[in-house]
């Protein structure tokens, strides 16, 4: 994945480039230093530092009391996290693959999301669930899904889909300090993506999309790693004389509707790109928000580009067909100008 020009610019200013994995680890370490109530629980999070090695080293600093290896019990550790959150702690529950969230879905959907409301505001659940999304790792149907649409559907939950190391750190610190349950989706393919990240702690408020690149002819709205797909598509489009504005959604819930609608009003065209299944997915919500909000300004239908509506196949040539690519984005954009 290539680093966008805007980010390169920021880099020169901030002076420090780290990977997304490092940004996440730094966010956790800084919050754990700041607030003794924060702890991490999950499968192989301690000595192993997770299979993705993202947490490596944390157990050395914070001990096995605050970086806790759990049994392989996704419902159980999520439930435990909820109870701990309700009683004064700030748990970060690690669910290794986003594909395993459905195991914990009763706890997430029926408990975490509803406790605050059902109690009339008396109880709260300051819980973070860190998990992953993204395909093309040749991990097949049960380890490649991007299931963030499901949790974005549920009132009471917040959902973050960081696209850059800068996002990752700022959104994760915000998630930990937030008094609500937050599902934090990290793209497995992006842990080694590098970008500028300030050393001191900072927060990115939820519900604020980032305009990664300004443009005038079409708006490309993207989540997580699809932001890079959109940026690469924008480059290809520029060669064809089409100026694309690229928006990084950052949080699907809350969704920054204003920024999306305003951009589409300006450019008069929009394409929404996401790595979750297309049907009833994130692209549907965002496309319908834009189509409604910018209706009188649009020169073409809002288009959607999600993952193919198939279980993710193992075979590499098949798997590569299922995800949006810059070329596919370009083709869709072109179709908007040919009508």
């Amino acid at each position, binding site marked *: 994945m290539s680093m966008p020009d805007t980010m390169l610019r920021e880099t020169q200013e901030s002076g420090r480039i780290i990977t997304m994995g490092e940004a996440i680890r730094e966010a956790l370490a800084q919050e754990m230093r700041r607030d003794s109530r924060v702890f991490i629980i999950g499968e192989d999070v301690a000595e192993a530092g997770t299979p993705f090695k993202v947490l490596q080293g944390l157990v050395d600093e914070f001990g096995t009391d605050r970086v806790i290896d759990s*049994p392989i*019990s996704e*419902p159980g550790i999520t439930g*435990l996290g909820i*109870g*701990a959150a309700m009683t004064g702690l700030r748990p970060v529950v690690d669910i290794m693959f986003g594909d395993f969230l459905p195991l914990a879905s009763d706890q997430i959907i029926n*408990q975490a999301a509803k406790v605050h*409301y059902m109690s*009339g*505001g008396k109880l709260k659940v300051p819980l973070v669930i860190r998990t992953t999304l993204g395909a093309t790792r040749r991990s097949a149907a049960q380890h490649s899904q991007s299931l963030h649409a499901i949790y974005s559907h549920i009132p009471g939950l917040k959902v973050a889909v960081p696209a850059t190391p800068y996002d990752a750190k700022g959104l994760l610190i915000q998630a930990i300090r937030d008094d609500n349950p937050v599902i934090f989706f990290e793209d497995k393919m992006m842990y080694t993506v590098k970008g500028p990240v300030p050393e001191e702690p900072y927060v990115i408020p939820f519900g604020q999309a980032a305009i990664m690149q300004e443009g005038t002819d079409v708006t490309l709205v993207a989540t997580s790693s699809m932001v890079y797909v959109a940026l690469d598509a924008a480059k290809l489009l520029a060669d064809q004389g089409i100026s694309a504005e690229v928006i990084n959604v950052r949080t699907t819930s809350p969704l920054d509707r204003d920024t999306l609608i305003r951009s589409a009003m300006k450019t008069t065209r929009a394409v929404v790109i996401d790595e979750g299944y297309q049907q009833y997915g994130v692209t549907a919500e965002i496309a319908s928000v834009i189509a409604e909000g910018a209706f009188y300004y649009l020169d073409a239908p809002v288009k959607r580009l999600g993952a193919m509506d198939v279980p993710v196949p193992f075979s590499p040539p098949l798997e590569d067909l299922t995800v949006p690519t810059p070329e596919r984005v370009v083709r869709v954009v072109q179709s908007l100008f040919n009508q």
Partner: protein
Amino acid sequence: MGIEQLGSGAAVEMYRTMVTIRKFEEQVNQLYLSAIMPGLAHLYSGEEAVAVGVCSALTSEDYITSTHRGHGHCLAKGADVRLMFAELLGKADGYCGGKGGSMHIADQERNNLGANAIVGGSAGIATGAAFSAKKRQSGQVVACFFGEGALGQGILYEVMNMASLWKLPILYVCENNLYNEYTPYQEVTAGSILKRPEAFGIPVEDLDGQNVEEVYDAASRAVARARAGEGPTFLHCRTYRYQGHHVGDINRTYYRSREEEQLWRTERDPIQLWRTRLVAAGIADEALLDRIDREVEELVKDGVEFAKNAPYPDESEVATHVYA
């Protein structure tokens, strides 16, 4: 332990709380029959000794989690009758501002973390609260109430494993009232209930859930173990619900006999048994207990009146508290 060490004040209070639960539930049934209460409710009548026995062994700082059949737990933890009725009627003054209702009453002030309409749904929450208490070194203990039907839910085993591993201060209180809704529990429960927690390294006590003293004693032992850092205990309380699964479950003969119901009511009533015991032990006389009955009657009537007269929440409340 036993009634002697308990102290006569506490013993009489346990009687009062059991009577409060019983009369509360009678009113709930009335509110349902007279179509004043929205929705349904699952009555606790017959099971009072479990909630009262366990909660009497807790401090107000200790936590409980409760179930769809949760009025008894809530009252035993010290809740206000007025605010409970108000909640059941969906009123603004209710414990949850009317948003929770019978199946979701929580009482933050007394560390009741809430009833739960998902069978087994609070097992995780309770275990997490115990984890939190241990980590915060607060000395708090958690009582996690659930019916024997929750033994069907896998999460219970997942969290018992963790509670045992990490010696969490928690009491798993299984209220075995013999039925999962309309199905006798033996038809859907293999092997031995008592051996299940044991397999996870959790000590078990098998209790007569109609005997408040026995429950209280066992709960006290379990609380002491928990506070001493010795980990969880599983209390299996054999009990019975007098009413239907919920207030609308009137014709029950297809799943249990009238004789069985009658037998429990006449021979095994926890309030009657405790009353007899109190009198026999010279701790209270009939007059005192009658007075308590009347006081409770008043309290409950007052609660119902309060709730009936309380306002519904303002329409704007529908959109508050989605997020903190």
